[in-house]
């Protein structure tokens, strides 16, 4: 791609912002119930919650869903780009370093506890639901954060973090978490098992804004910190030594990337479960459209990833079975992964000649 000019930079960002806004405006229209958008929107905006008609309530639910999908998709795509740059591996995803597995293990523990806790069964329904939600999100975050801490302790070296150490520790911890999850599943009742399975598929069908807001204090600062590293990632991609020779503090950049990327991913997983492949598909597709430079790639990933997941969710919820969106992204992601693999093999083949 030709060198990035100021003009192309801003035009591209403008186009992506426009596409994201259009997605936000259009996707709430779709769902199992038809909706008179403008009337419902005015009511949603001007009336207090208690006076809402069914239409406004429906719109509110869809807006929650849209916000969750947008934030989750954008975060996963940005973390994917950042991890691919830090690990210098095009196949890295936000889940490569084991944070999602830790989060899933935490959530599983919460399901076990909630299912067997007398207090939760005796509490009034809405209170029990809220308690269960906070318990699940809290446990998922706790699981993810402890995995993150263990991986950091294993991978840190004299000069910062060893990326090979990160990869090895991440993959190993993922396996350990999976083993623990298998044990928990064996120990649980069919009812719990069903909830666990459903959660693992991932879905953005949050019931209220209350599911999203507790995560924002973790999510937004982490994302902001990742986005302002953009130009340093371009240097890091070419190797730690070259980056250091250009004045990049490599150890600090790696730490910021690892911690912010892991925390943001943990927050997303706590809300929507481990939705797969967004962090892989979106960065690769966008590199082909906007080029490899991170100062454009990262913000486009935030906007494009958000819009992509929002659209996927809309498609998933208008299917007759109302699929969980994680199932849809996985069905798209698997073949895409294969396509990447075949293409890179073809390139290797060409270079051998």
């Amino acid at each position: 791609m030709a060198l990035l000019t100021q003009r192309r930079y801003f035009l591209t960002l403008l186009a992506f912002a426009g596409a994201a806004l259009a997605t936000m405006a259009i996707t709430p229209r779709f769902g199992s119930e038809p909706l008179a958008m403008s009337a419902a929107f005015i009511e949603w905006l001007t009336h207090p919650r208690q006076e809402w008609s069914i239409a406004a309530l429906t719109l509110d639910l869809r807006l929650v869903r849209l916000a969750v999908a947008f934030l989750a998709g954008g975060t996963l795509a940005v973390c994917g780009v950042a991890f691919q740059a830090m690990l210098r591996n095009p196949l890295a995803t936000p889940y490569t370093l084991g944070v999602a597995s830790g989060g899933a293990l935490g959530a599983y523990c919460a399901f076990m506890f909630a299912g067997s806790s007398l207090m939760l069964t005796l509490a009034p329904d809405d209170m029990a639901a809220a308690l269960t939600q906070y318990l699940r999100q809290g446990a998922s975050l706790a699981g993810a954060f402890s995995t993150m801490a263990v991986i950091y302790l294993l991978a840190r070296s004299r000069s910062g973090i060893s990326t090979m150490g990160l990869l090895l520790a991440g993959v190993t911890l993922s396996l350990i978490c999976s083993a623990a999850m298998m044990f928990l599943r064996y120990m649980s009742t069919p009812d719990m098992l069903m909830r666990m399975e459903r959660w693992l598929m991932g879905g953005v069908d949050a019931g209220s804004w209350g599911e999203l807001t507790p995560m924002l204090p973790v999510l937004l600062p982490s994302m902001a910190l990742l986005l302002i590293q953009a130009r340093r990632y371009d240097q890091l991609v070419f190797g730690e030594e070259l980056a250091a020779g250009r004045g990049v503090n490599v150890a600090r950049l790696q730490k910021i990337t690892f911690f912010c990327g892991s925390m943001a991913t943990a927050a997303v997983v706590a809300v929507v479960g481990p939705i797969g492949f967004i962090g892989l598909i979106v960065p690769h597709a966008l590199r082909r459209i906007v080029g490899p430079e991170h100062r454009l790639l990262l913000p486009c990933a935030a906007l494009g990833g958000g819009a992509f997941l929002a659209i996927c969710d809309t498609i998933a919820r208008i299917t007759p079975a109302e699929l969980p969106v994680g199932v849809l992204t996985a069905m798209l992601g698997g073949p895409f992964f294969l396509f990447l693999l075949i293409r890179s093999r073809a390139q290797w083949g060409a270079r051998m000649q």
Partner: protein
Amino acid sequence: MLLETDGAGYAYQPGRWALRGITARFEPGTMTGIIGPNGSGKSTLLRLLASIRTPSEGAIRLNGKRLREHKSDALARSIAFMPQTVTPVCAYSCEETVALGRYPHLGAMGFLTQNDLKQIREAMLQTDTLEFAERPLDDLSGGERQRVLLASVLAQQAEFLLLDEPTSALDLHHQHEVMTLLRQFSRNGQCVIVVAHDLNLAAQFCDRLLLLSAGRLEAAGAAEEVLTAERLSPVYGGQIAVLEHPLTRQPLITVLSKKTYE
């Protein structure tokens, strides 16, 4: 401008010294070659000079101030470093790769000015890489990639150019092109420091050679002083003969295998 090491040493693990007691000065207008056998500390010395690593003992100073006391972007405008191997994972074009060399000179948003574009073009012209400008770096051969990388280091426009085996992947013709270019930079007032494997190439182009052996500075001086059979044979092992080049009168180094001198 003066880059100097003062008893500098480095240990990758405590107690295991890769480099020790190196004292040397590097001045603008000179071209220095760092030579020595594998594992003698050549690359380590270059990393210390480039502030990629901090010396475990002793000091390295730029204009009398320790490297760590300089701001990192200011340092990168003074000292450019080219590592031995670089493998990008994403499809940057050659032009984009060279443009990344301007990093220490750009503002927060990283937009290129007319002057930056001129420097990028100039660097590509000098390294004979202009023809690849739009091609992805991944598509090139090893030697072509090395030249693009060199262009990106040149685009950094630093006074001190530190290069770790810049000609290792190049063919004979481009080896000489690149070394001639580097020598020309040193004549124009830059300071060039290269780690060199090829002693003959180093002898031909460098004003001064530093011979390292097992982390120590064995000898420093002009090619004729450093490259003698008595010095090289114990350092490299084996029987080394130093002849005089029939055309240039410079030292010509060959290794005598057992077969040759029996």
